[in-house]
């Protein structure tokens, strides 16, 4: 059946948060070099998938452009494919740089980057948080650091985008990757707040932030420790637990209603017992 509606949700269930770090030859006046002169050094992608009952699954991957730019761009494209993209100022910088890098390597087949780059600012395919927070140009732009600080999320504590060239010169690639990952997690948390507020859905924001913190703690990501429990996390944890139970009750109601409509396939008897120790 043809799907007529093309509108997308402002609270995506399958999303990829992207941030890149780049280097560029300095310009004479000491300002920010124009974007086409930038080459990516690393790209971090945080993927989040919302499963049944408000459960989130996360992965975090940092792609290294130094060892092979062509392979790296393909990997980034694969990671963001079929997901709604979340960036901070990605329309103005990250995506044009990545698109240009793909073209440079004659990789015209990269669906993920191509689709994200072409999507317009209101499409919902790409959530550029800088654009959304400024009311699509209505308010003056603010930095990610500034917005996150107001929400009690500490980003860019040890490092800044302008330090990347210096860290590269020192060969401290690990620090750049860690910085990029912390930026991407900060952007993810900011997205959860914005998406939750836009759709008036506290459960979305709470479950995302609470479970992301738990996932970081479980994965023992020491450089992201600041995001394990942000300000107000107790309340977010409570809302998240409540959301899970509420969705469970709603699912029970739904299944009860299905029973009277059709014959649902019952348990088959083909069981494999697996003792699980919770």
């Amino acid at each position: 059946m043809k799907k007529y509606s093309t509108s997308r949700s402002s609270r995506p269930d399958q999303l990829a948060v992207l941030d890149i770090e780049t280097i560029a030859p300095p310009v004479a006046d000491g300002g920010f070099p124009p974007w086409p002169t930038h080459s990516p050094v690393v790209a971090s992608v945080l993927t989040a998938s919302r499963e049944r009952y408000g459960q989130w699954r996360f992965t975090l991957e940092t792609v290294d452009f130094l060892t092979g730019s062509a392979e790296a761009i393909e990997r980034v494209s694969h990671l963001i494919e079929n997901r709604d993209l979340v960036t901070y100022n990605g329309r103005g910088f990250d995506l044009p740089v990545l698109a240009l890098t793909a073209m440079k390597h004659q990789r015209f087949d990269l669906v993920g980057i191509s689709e994200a780059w072409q999507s317009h600012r209101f499409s919902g395919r790409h959530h550029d948080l800088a654009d959304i927070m400024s009311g699509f140009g209505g308010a003056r732009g603010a930095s990610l650091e500034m917005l996150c600080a107001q929400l009690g999320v500490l980003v860019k504590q040890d490092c800044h985008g302008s330090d990347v060239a210096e860290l590269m010169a020192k060969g401290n690639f690990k620090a750049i990757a860690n910085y990029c990952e912390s930026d991407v997690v900060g952007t993810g948390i900011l997205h959860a707040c914005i998406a939750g507020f836009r759709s008036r859905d506290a459960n979305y924001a709470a479950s995302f932030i609470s479970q992301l913190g738990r996932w970081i703690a479980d994965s023992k990501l020491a450089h992201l420790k600041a995001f394990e429990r942000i300000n107000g996390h107790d309340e977010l944890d409570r809302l998240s637990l409540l959301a899970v139970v509420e969705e469970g009750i709603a699912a029970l109601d739904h299944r009860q209603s299905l029973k009277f409509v059709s014959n649902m396939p019952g348990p088959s008897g083909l069981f494999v017992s697996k003792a699980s120790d919770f």
Partner: protein
Amino acid sequence: MQYPNDLTVIVPQFRMVTDLNKRAFSDRLVFLSAFAVLRAVRGDDNNITFRQRIEIDPDGNRTMDLLCQFGDELQPGTTIGGWRLDRQVASFIRLPRDSDREDEGKAPLMRLSLALVSKPIDVGWFDQHGGLPTVSTAASLHGLPAEWRNQSNNPALVGQRLAARARSIWASIGEKLLEQGEARRKAFANFDQFNTEGGGMK
């Protein structure tokens, strides 16, 4: 965070079954095999009264009864305490699946939901790593987890373990949240008394 005057520590134990039939509604069925609930109510005189209930289902076919009994133990307004509450709550809501009695599962879940409205306390949040504090771990495990997997069909041992775990969780919450001074001394004296006098393992 303050120590709550009415605290219910929950320690459920789940059994998971994988369904190989892809047509079935779910590929993962979860059953409740045992639970321990420890309720600690603090009165005006700062004395804490402990009450514990343990239910075990060795045959694994009383999930819904156990869930209903668990729901009965949860009073609205009580603060839920536990370890890894997010994981436990996620398993609780999977329980009534594929059961003829699944509508009955709604009432206990609603009681759980009501209880979660007050601020829940997860001891995993205290040390930021989601683990039971090391002082309590040995007491709660009584051996290696691998051994427990093999002994999970022994109801006496399961009960002992769940009881120990519930008490460890209360002790962690008490250590962290009870205010220093007479109130704290009294609370732990009550706890010691409850612990040594048996407190009713079952």
